[in-house]
């Protein structure tokens, strides 16, 4: 399901872009980020204090005044809101004046960092080769040497002074900026519009300044914000340790004096707390601001797999007016038939919705079928028809935006949609397992294949029944992988082997049902045949029920006893494999078969179905298939077809077939 972004995120790498990404909506996106706004305000306050120091400060801390003994480390009083320091001076004024020093150091040092780091990073990233290597080695060396000790040692030798401090901080801290800029430049360098400009013969300098620099600028800005606060902290640390400029009052110097004059033992908290708070204020503000920039430049993931499941919505909630994007609710249910004793899985009226910021989309509606022990079922349909969604729903593995609205899934006698989370964890894998589509990353790359298969068995306590280690070997052997490869990692397996390993893992707990979602997509034909054979063997030997989700009808013909055809979230035809292939009644099924090459008539032209599957945001009225249906009439656009049984074991959803017209 495509999730629509309202504001296009910046700096996303899209290699086929004709021009650079737009900067539209930057201010809007920023103002939505509350953290960023708070950070900006915090910094603005400090800047304000630094500019209007003379106006705000009650006293001038640089002025030499007469003090009495009572003034030394005096607690807060009406004349001195934050008390007095070890020399009798007003603490509040010192804190206010400190802002100027800190900001000066911060901004100047940050400037050095931006210039040196930015230029070197740009050069390294743009030119690559020896230039890159040399610059990056220097960066690495600087980054490894511990920074504060280095600064201490240099200042101790070079002398205390504000210029020295700014220079030392700036010249030792640009490494990180260089790295970041270089990384960005490397990405941007390969973008289409840069390549085009280069082929036009534009000079290097112009490319770097006019084309690449604007792209890197937001990142530089974000990092510079952090660098300002970092420089401020560095200066205060140097001052605290006794290497600050003795002629200036900075927050670090204040704390140095406080410490040396025993403010801690004397409990002079008014002298100790404010300068530190000021430092924290600046750092927090710039961290928030920088974080906000980061979020805009590199939007983070919105969700992951471990979320708290929400309860299944009961039908009554369908009438909620807020769900205005809903299509007309289907009301038909297949007659409640007595469930035959050999039924393993009984799915009734399964309805799944994706609830996103862009609206609610019905991906599956009123799906109904039975599956008997030992029988296999094919679930076919075009991409996006809801097959995978339906199967994820059965095991309650939908993503966070997916919600099961209605229906029941009975495994043997229990409705597993309504059992507790703990119970469904027991059913998972033990009774029903799943092989996911595109097994590239379905196995954890940092763990051995064997350990992951072992895990499946350990979770379900198979250790008490058999020797797990041996069983892993046996399973791998069963799928045609040498058992000593159990100690290898997924990246050491080929694509086909990984898929077979997934199958081995899927049958590890001797489940009754294995759901195979497009198990052979992205594999070459020879491997496909191997996997197919393997599945057939397993079916036979283990009396396994396989639900094969695929758009490959050939595979269905080989493996399955029953077929469910889906279209646009609906079940449109459900029958035995014989009936589907030899006597399909639904127009869609008929066309689907026509689109497949027939081995008996290889020269026949392949039919294709004009048009595209319906967008779930804009479902057709009446029958969902009618816009593409070769047998549609006017009323198909108005009336909604219901599921009905045309003959025992053959279910259909078509108005015209139901009324015997076709």
């Amino acid at each position, binding site marked *: 399901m495509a999730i629509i972004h309202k504001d296009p995120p910046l700096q996303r790498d899209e290699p086929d872009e004709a021009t650079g990404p737009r900067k539209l909506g930057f201010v809007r996106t920023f103002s939505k980020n509350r953290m960023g706004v708070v950070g900006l305000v915090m910094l603005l306050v400090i800047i304000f204090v630094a500019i209007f120091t003379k106006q705000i400060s009650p006293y001038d801390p640089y002025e030499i005044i007469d003090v009495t003994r009572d003034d030394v480390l005096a607690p807060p009083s009406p004349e001195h809101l934050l008390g007095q320091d070890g020399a009798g001076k007003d603490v509040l004024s010192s804190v206010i004046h400190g802002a100027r020093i800190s900001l000066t150091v911060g901004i100047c040092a940050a400037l050095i960092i931006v210039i040196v780091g930015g230029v070197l990073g740009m050069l390294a990233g743009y030119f690559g080769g020896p230039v890159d290597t040399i610059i990056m080695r220097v960066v690495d060396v600087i980054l490894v040497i*511990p920074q504060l*000790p280095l600064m201490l*040692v240099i200042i101790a030798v070079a002398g205390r002074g504000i210029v020295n401090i700014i220079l030392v901080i700036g010249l030792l801290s640009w490494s990180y900026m260089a790295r970041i800029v270089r990384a960005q430049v490397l990405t941007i360098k390969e973008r289409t519009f840069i390549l085009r400009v280069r082929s036009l013969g534009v000079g290097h300098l112009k490319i770097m300044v006019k084309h690449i620099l604007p792209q890197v600028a937001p990142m530089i800005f974000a990092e510079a914000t952090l660098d300002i606060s970092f420089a401020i902290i560095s200066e205060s640390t140097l001052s605290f340790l006794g290497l600050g400029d003795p002629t200036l009052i900075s927050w670090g110097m204040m704390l140095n004096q406080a*410490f040396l004059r025993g403010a801690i033992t004397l409990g002079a908290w008014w002298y100790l707390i404010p300068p*530190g708070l000021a430092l924290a204020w600046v750092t927090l503000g710039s961290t928030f601001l920088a974080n906000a920039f980061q979020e805009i430049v590199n939007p983070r993931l919105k*969700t992951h797999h471990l979320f708290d499941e929400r309860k299944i919505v009961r039908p009554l909630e369908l009438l909620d007016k807020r769900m205005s994007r809903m299509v007309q609710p289907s009301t038909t249910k297949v007659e409640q038939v007595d469930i035959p004793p050999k039924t393993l899985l009984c799915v009734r009226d399964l309805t799944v919705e994706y609830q996103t910021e862009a609206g609610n989309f019905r991906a599956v509606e009123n799906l109904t079928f039975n599956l008997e022990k030992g029988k296999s079922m094919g679930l076919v349909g075009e991409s996006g028809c809801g097959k995978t969604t339906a199967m994820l729903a059965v095991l309650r593995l939908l993503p966070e935006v997916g919600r099961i609205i209605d229906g029941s899934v009975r495994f043997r006698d229990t409705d597993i949609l309504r059992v507790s989370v703990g119970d469904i964890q027991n059913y998972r894998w033990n009774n029903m397992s799943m092989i996911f589509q595109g097994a590239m990353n379905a196995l954890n790359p940092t763990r051995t294949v064997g350990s992951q298969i072992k895990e499946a068995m350990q*979770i379900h306590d198979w250790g008490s029944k058999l020797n797990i280690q041996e069983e892993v070997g046996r399973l791998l052997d069963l799928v045609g992988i040498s058992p000593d490869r159990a100690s290898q990692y997924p990246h050491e397996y080929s694509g086909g082997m990984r898929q077979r390993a997934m199958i081995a893992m899927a049958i590890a707990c001797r489940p009754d049902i294995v759901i195979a979602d497009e198990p052979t997509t992205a594999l070459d034909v020879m491997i496909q045949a191997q996997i197919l054979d393997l599945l057939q063997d397993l079916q036979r030997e283990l009396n396994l029920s396989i639900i094969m989700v695929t758009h490959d009808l050939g595979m269905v013909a080989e493996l399955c006893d029953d077929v469910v055809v889906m279209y646009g979230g609906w079940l449109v035809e459900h029958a035995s494999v014989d009936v589907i292939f030899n006597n399909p009644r639904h127009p869609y099924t008929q066309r689907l078969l026509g689109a497949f090459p027939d081995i008996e008539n290889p020269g026949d032209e392949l039919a294709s179905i004009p048009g595209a599957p319906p967008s779930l945001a804009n479902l057709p009225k009446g029958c969902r298939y009618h816009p593409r249906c070769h047998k549609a009439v006017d009323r198909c656009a108005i009336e909604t077809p219901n599921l009905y049984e045309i003959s025992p074991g053959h279910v259909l959803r078509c108005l015209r077939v139901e009324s015997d017209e076709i």
Partner: protein
Amino acid sequence: MHQRLDYLIRRLAFSVVTLVAVLTFNFFLFRIIPGDPVQMMVSPMMTKETRDKIRQVYGLDKPLWLNVEEFQEDGEFEKLFDSQFAYYIRNLLKGELGMSFRQRIPVSEILSNRVGPSLLLILSGEVLGILFGTFLGLIAAWKKKSMIDASTMFVSLTVWALPPFWLGIIMLILSRGHLPMGGLVTPGTIYASNWEKILDIGRHVILPATTLALMLVGAYVLIVRNTTLEVLAEDYTLTAKAKGLTPLQVLRYHALRNASLPLVTIIAMDLGYALGGSIQIETIFSYPGLGRLMFESIGQRDYPVLQAVFLILAVVVISANFFADLSYTILDPRIKS
């Protein structure tokens, strides 16, 4: 395997180059100030015998880098290296680090007393930081966008924003009366039992170690949380969930392993920062380690000690980075280059 070795050799070469750079820098720094460069090595407070001895051991009347004159005179190749730099390297290899200005005993003696406490502090602080950082990071990622996540992030970021020395000050103020104000041992404990001695040291270390941990936890929480967020959105997490693992099991058996790889790198990278922090923390808590030694020697202009401590710290960080690279190749099966 071959590629792993390749990678390691390159990292070793890099460490060596950095080490050489640090040694050279250290040598260079204390001899480039205008005026008598000998000032840095010889204090006017020392007796004539000591000053002469130092001149001899350090070859302070010889040229800086290479002794071209004597080589040209004598023709012996060895004489080329009869220079200060050569003396410097030779002395380092012997463990000869100079004489402290203040204490007039060899620097190496002073250092050896201080290494133990610093080691104890750094280890305790790091362990605490890693434990809390990992735990909070995993939970914050799992309960993304909840109150737990938001408050963990807020507190971590806030604590991380505080300058370490100020953090120490706050801790001291808060713990007045409950825990010792500083130092490593309470006077008189030499008469106590071994167990009491250990407890006493523990009571002295707990506050500085916690301060160090707080300093680091912000970075650790952030990296663990970010990595875990990525891990939890991967396909193999869905597979794990489909296998019937509970969220805690997923965190323990899948997320933890994957998140610990970047954590190892961050720990090594932040070790320099941790050492810098320990300088501040030891100062605040009057803790008798290398960090406090550095602070003292700055105030006392005890340059030989200053140089030596810097050297030790640099060597430690360089080695730690190398070992981090080493362990990364062991932990991450995907490292090929």
